[in-house]
């Protein structure tokens, strides 16, 4: 890694480079002191191939061991994009599962690949070719896999947008109990094995499956087939492309893609009984993501968006086990140990640098890293000091409402507060001729369609004056967090959104409207008693 842009502790690359040629020949691996070094990680740390592998593998296991979130026997979905980082992650899992029993990883993996070709400029032929390439690799891995096209978002149920709450539990104890229980179970199986024959492993797998199914509550709609291997219907591809081309900026398009992708992964995980999802974000990627999200107004959610674990959905927890690796380490490992990866164009491939916040921030960080080699590690270390807690002084009521799209707790200040949000509201008001009455935060507009009916395009248009035509949009926007609201400014129409989002939005505004209607008749009792008899389940 003797290249510009690596994480040197002390002297800059200029001071290092002249030393390398003449020192390199006699230098030994700094770990085992005998092997021939093949690469340099950080300042002068030369590693031989074996020691580098040990170092790399240890990092992965240490990350999982330190956090103790993956329980033995748990089903874990590995999100694979085909890129180097997530490919390396899958290889690490495979490596961990093939170890001798004491050091074996004990979870049950599966792989998901989301085919986003439709919005990344791939033709159907190219997409088919990519999928074939993916399958070739997947078949060598022998984990169960799910290839899902992004078009499937049009078949998602509204349950995707409803977090499933899980009671707080003491992680430390449950983890130990789970491990002990698992080991005991395995020992019992081994004792019984000679008596009953070979069918044991299957049985235990089924038991685990059964338990997990009890854990994850599912919408009945959720059972519908998602993981179809065949190419999506052309009509849905067109709908998806209409949706993305209606979005005015690449920044908002990228955010929309991330949102839909997250929903899709979550749904597949729930339907297939996975309780953890592993994402392949590297340290480099996370540092860029952190700065990007900061600029997108997601300051409140940085700990969820970039931390090791993300529990915003409740029942399915997202993990980022690759967060300790720099992209360069990953690239070297993949190259040395022949980890295959597939190149697929992303949504911003070939876009100019100034096209989006994401691209700008990425090139800024990478350029700064070349000049100041500790940039990425500094940002990364700062991110570890962020916590998943609202700042003191947040209104308690607002804490329960979740953003419709990103499912984080709403971070909306009141319109008359001395905050960036308040200031923008005022600015917009000044724009209007006669300041129209603004709905207070969280107060819903009247929903236009009756409850339970599917939103029909045009059902509440044309018959009303123009100010009322905006209502579904206004109540949609009120269900969003600050950042998603900013994104929505670049999305002029709601109609192209997948039905599950529109239906859930309508359901929420209906619920909020009903609540407002009956508010005056309710006694000011404790919230529990006041809400439950009327059927306002604390969904969010």
């Amino acid at each position, binding site marked *: 890694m003797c290249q510009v842009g690596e994480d040197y502790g002390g002297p800059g690359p200029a001071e290092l480079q002249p030393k390398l040629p003449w020192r390199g020949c006699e230098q030994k691996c700094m770990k085992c002191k005998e092997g021939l070094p093949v690469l340099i990680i950080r300042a002068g740390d030369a590693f031989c191939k074996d020691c580098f592998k040990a170092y790399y593998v240890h990092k992965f296991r240490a990350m999982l061991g330190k956090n103790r979130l993956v329980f033995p026997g748990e089903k874990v979905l590995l999100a694979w994009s085909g890129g180097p980082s997530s490919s390396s992650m899958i290889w690490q899992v495979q490596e961990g599962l093939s170890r001798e029993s004491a050091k074996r990883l004990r979870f049950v993996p599966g792989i998901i690949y989301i085919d986003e070709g439709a919005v990344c400029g791939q033709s159907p032929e190219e997409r088919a070719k990519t999928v074939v390439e993916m399958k070739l690799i997947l078949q060598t891995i022998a984990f169960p896999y799910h290839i899902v096209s992004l078009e499937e978002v049009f078949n998602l149920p509204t349950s995707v947008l409803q977090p499933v709450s899980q009671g707080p539990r003491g992680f430390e104890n449950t983890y130990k109990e789970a491990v002990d229980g698992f080991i005991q179970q395995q020992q019992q199986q081994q004792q019984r094995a000679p008596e009953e024959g070979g069918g044991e492993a299957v049985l235990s797998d089924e038991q685990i499956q059964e338990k997990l199914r009890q854990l994850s509550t599912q919408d009945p709609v959720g059972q519908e087939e998602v993981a179809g291997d065949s190419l999506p219907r052309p009509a849905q591809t067109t709908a998806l492309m209409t949706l993305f081309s209606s979005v005015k*900026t690449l*920044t908002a398009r990228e955010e929309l893609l991330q949102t839909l992708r997250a929903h899709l992964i979550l749904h597949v995980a729930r339907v297939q009984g996975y309780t953890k999802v592993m994402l392949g974000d590297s340290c480099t990627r996370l540092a860029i993501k*952190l*700065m990007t*999200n*900061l*600029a*997108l*107004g*997601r*300051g*409140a959610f*940085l*700990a969820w968006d970039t931390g090791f674990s993300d529990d915003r959905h409740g029942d399915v927890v997202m993990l980022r086990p690759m967060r300790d690796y720099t992209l360069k380490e990953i690239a070297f490992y993949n190259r040395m140990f022949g980890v295959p990866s597939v190149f697929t164009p992303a949504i911003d491939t070939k876009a100019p640098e*100034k*096209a*989006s*916040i994401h691209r*700008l*921030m990425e090139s*800024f960080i990478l350029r*700064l890293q070349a000049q100041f080699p500790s*940039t990425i590690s*500094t*940002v990364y*270390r*700062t991110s570890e*000091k*962020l*916590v*998943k*807690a*609202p*700042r003191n002084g947040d209104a308690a009521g607002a804490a329960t409402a979740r953003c419709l799209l990103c499912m984080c707790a709403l*971070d909306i*200040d009141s319109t*008359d*507060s*001395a*905050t*960036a*949000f*308040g*200031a*923008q509201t*005022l*600015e*917009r008001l*000044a*724009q209007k*001729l006669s300041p129209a009455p603004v709905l207070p935060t969280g107060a819903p507009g009247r929903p236009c369609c009756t409850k339970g009916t599917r939103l029909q395009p045009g059902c509440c248009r044309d018959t009303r004056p123009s100010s009322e035509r905006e209502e579904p949009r206004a109540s949609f926007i009120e269900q969003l967090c*600050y*950042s998603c609201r*900013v994104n929505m*400014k670049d999305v002029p129409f709601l109609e192209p959104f997948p039905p599950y989002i529109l239906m859930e939005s309508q359901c929420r505004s209906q619920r909020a409207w009903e609540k407002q209607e009956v508010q005056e008749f309710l006694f000011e009792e404790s919230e529990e008693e006041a809400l439950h008899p009327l059927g306002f389940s604390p969904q969010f």
Partner: protein
Amino acid sequence: MPVPRCSGPCGGVRPAALRRPRTGGAVCRSCFCNAFEAEVLSTLQTGRLLPPGAVVAVGASGGKDSTVLAHVLRALDARHGLALDLHLVAVDEGIGGYRDAALAAVRRQAGRWRLPLTVVAYADLFGGWTMDEVARRAAQEPGRARACCTFCGVLRRRALEEGAQRVGATHIVTGHNADDMAETVLMNFLRGDSGRLARGGTLGSPGEGGALPRCRPLQFASQKEIVLYAHFQELDYFSEECVYAPEAFRGHVRDLLKALEAARPSVVLDLVHSAERLALAPAARPPPPGACTRCGALSSRSLCQACALLDGLNRGRPRLAIGKGRKGLGEEGEKQSCTSKDSSGGPSRAGAIQAF
């Protein structure tokens, strides 16, 4: 291109003079100025920044931000009866060819608006150190010219506090705008300064431990609008960059912010929103501030940063208090020996801070 009519409260009577950078709305000159002032007023009122009867020290540099701030505060005070007692406090850092011209602008403003002006000079406060001399000393360490702004920023805050105390102020206001805040958030992340991240994001500090409360009424105003406002009000301000600024790290971040703003006009306020909402681990939060053992100013360590920097300068090691170099500082026990060294080595500079 035909000029659109104003879409502001005047109802299209006048042709529009500008598009507001963030909303894109076309407004005429007077509607824009009214809206701008109303927004600053709203920040003052909703944030409860300046109570009636407050004696306000306006940090005046002669630049666009502080000029607009003083002008708007004066206008709002007269129109809405805020009962503010405004004072201009300017700091003379001693930067040849830059600060003299800026101070001349401040003097002209003070004369025109009939506001009392107090100038505090680094040379008087910090035992003879001017920024030019600090820069010369800092430049002796190779490749470290960047440190200039580090010195100047710390010392200026200290000097402003001192100037405000002198005029008997109860509040300090500074002209920091939304762009400054956004840059600061980005910089604090890039430098890994979690202490500042935990502290930042509010409209100022409430004033604790003897320090005056500070606030930034222009925190939500974008830099572009401030320039536009100054332009329409025909304000006389000084608009040159400091001679030492091009070397500052802030420059990188400023360029980034400009590019981000081109991609998404609301990005500056989005960053401010992020800063308001950051949640840091309790361990990352700085300890409650105490007082500097040497000058008594508010400090999170035993020696405040201004004293620490001056200490380094006086001992010929200007980098002493920057970054991780605090170890060599005689923070606790060595205080005695430091003072004695100072009195023998630097004749006029010893204990300058204690003087006030």
